[in-house]
């Protein structure tokens, strides 16, 4: 069963740092999602994914991530979180605050 191809970018993790990287249109890797090459053609996307899987000296776990819009904007929660990093409820990066609301009185 094949689903219609959705335009996608190619993301992976950098081998050395583990950070999320995106394939650019010059076959390089960037951590800026705005510079990711967008694939409209399924065959090309699959070919580039196969190529990326062979780049084991640079990246690991390459995947195609469906996107929409010009930004490009990933459509899945996972890919969005990979692009933005984890966020706490208050919209601030979770690691900045041990508590989103500093309290004046001890909690009871």
């Amino acid at each position, binding site marked *: 069963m094949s689903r219609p191809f959705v335009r996608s970018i190619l993301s992976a993790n950098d081998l050395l740092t583990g950070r999320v990287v995106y394939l650019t249109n010059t*076959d390089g890797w960037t951590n800026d999602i705005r510079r990711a090459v967008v694939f409209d053609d399924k065959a090309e996307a699959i070919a*580039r994914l*196969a*190529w990326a*899987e*062979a780049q*084991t000296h640079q990246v690991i776990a390459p995947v195609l991530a469906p996107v929409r819009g010009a930004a490009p904007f990933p459509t899945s929660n996972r890919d969005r979180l990979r692009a933005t990093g984890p966020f706490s409820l208050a919209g601030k990066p979770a690691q900045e605050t041990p508590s989103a609301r500093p309290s004046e009185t001890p909690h009871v």
Partner: protein
Amino acid sequence: MLHDVSIPYPGLSGCPDYETLDTRTLLARALADPALGRCALVSSFGAESVVLLHLISRIKPDLPILFIDTELLFAETLRYQKSLARLLGLSNVQIIRAHPRDLSQTDPHNRLHISDPDSCCNLRKVQPLQRALQSFDTWISGRKRYQGGLRASLPLFEKDGEKHLKINPLANWSAQDIHDYIEQNNLPRHPLLEKGYHSIGCKPCTRPASGRTGRWSGQNKTECGIHLRNGRVVSRPAAAVLVRDGGFVVKDQQSETAALDLPGDTALQDLPADLHNHSMIRITFSNFADGRGFTLARDLRRRGYRGCLRACGPLLADQYSMIRRVGFDEVEIPAEHARRQPERLWQARANWQAYDYQSRLQGWTRGRQHHI
């Protein structure tokens, strides 16, 4: 249909000395000569391919052009191939690929090029080309003498196996000739040339460098193998390697005639009753992550087996101390595996008795200092 030919091809009819012909005439005569049968051009659409493609396009634009897509090519090559074919009016470009079944069997994770580039070339170039060439009698390649190495004494015509003739029309072209031709005819060059590449093959095995030194750089390989004649890349199974505490040892076939072979997942109840009669038992690991062989070895020792226990399979040097501690005496690894896991990696783990927590616990006596 091909008449019997010998190297070098003595006769284009009526023209004994074709080394003096200009390349264009040579090609025009060859492509019109029925003695050469069905012809094809094999082109990589690489750094200098545009010359021969342009020549062909002026003579016979519908000549079959075989383009090998290894599926590991640069995106730029794929795009260049399409746009150049369109520009030159080449209407019969045939894309050759390995069969998906072969790929998934032999190189499912696309990393064969790291462990065994010869086999990767064979899988993705040599075999597919050989299959494709069965439909032809003569093929044309763009190799040149100035490229050096194995190409330094290239003839214009050569016999290729039993059934084929190969033409190298650019054999005596110099680098300057190539450059001038491209300039004079205003031909588009491969986009990667701007980035410092001088010879362009598959992406994993190509680095920017001059001449062909960027291909398989750092390895002993200079040819992919499609031009090697007796020379089909044949993987000769090299002898397996034995690993012991002292290092690598060559196998002695004689001593193993009485060996018993057991797969690592052999169940206890399936062990043969006569196992003690064998001086050697070889336990095979189908892959390094299947740990059942370790338990089997321990069980055999618990049953009192005193012979030689050998672990066979693609095991990692990092497993050596586990292998020895559970009771194996030695390891047998495939030769290809030994290339990636060379002797010094195994030697680094030869001190398998050090820091053995389990033995230390079992042998603990009160009050004694158990530092080692």
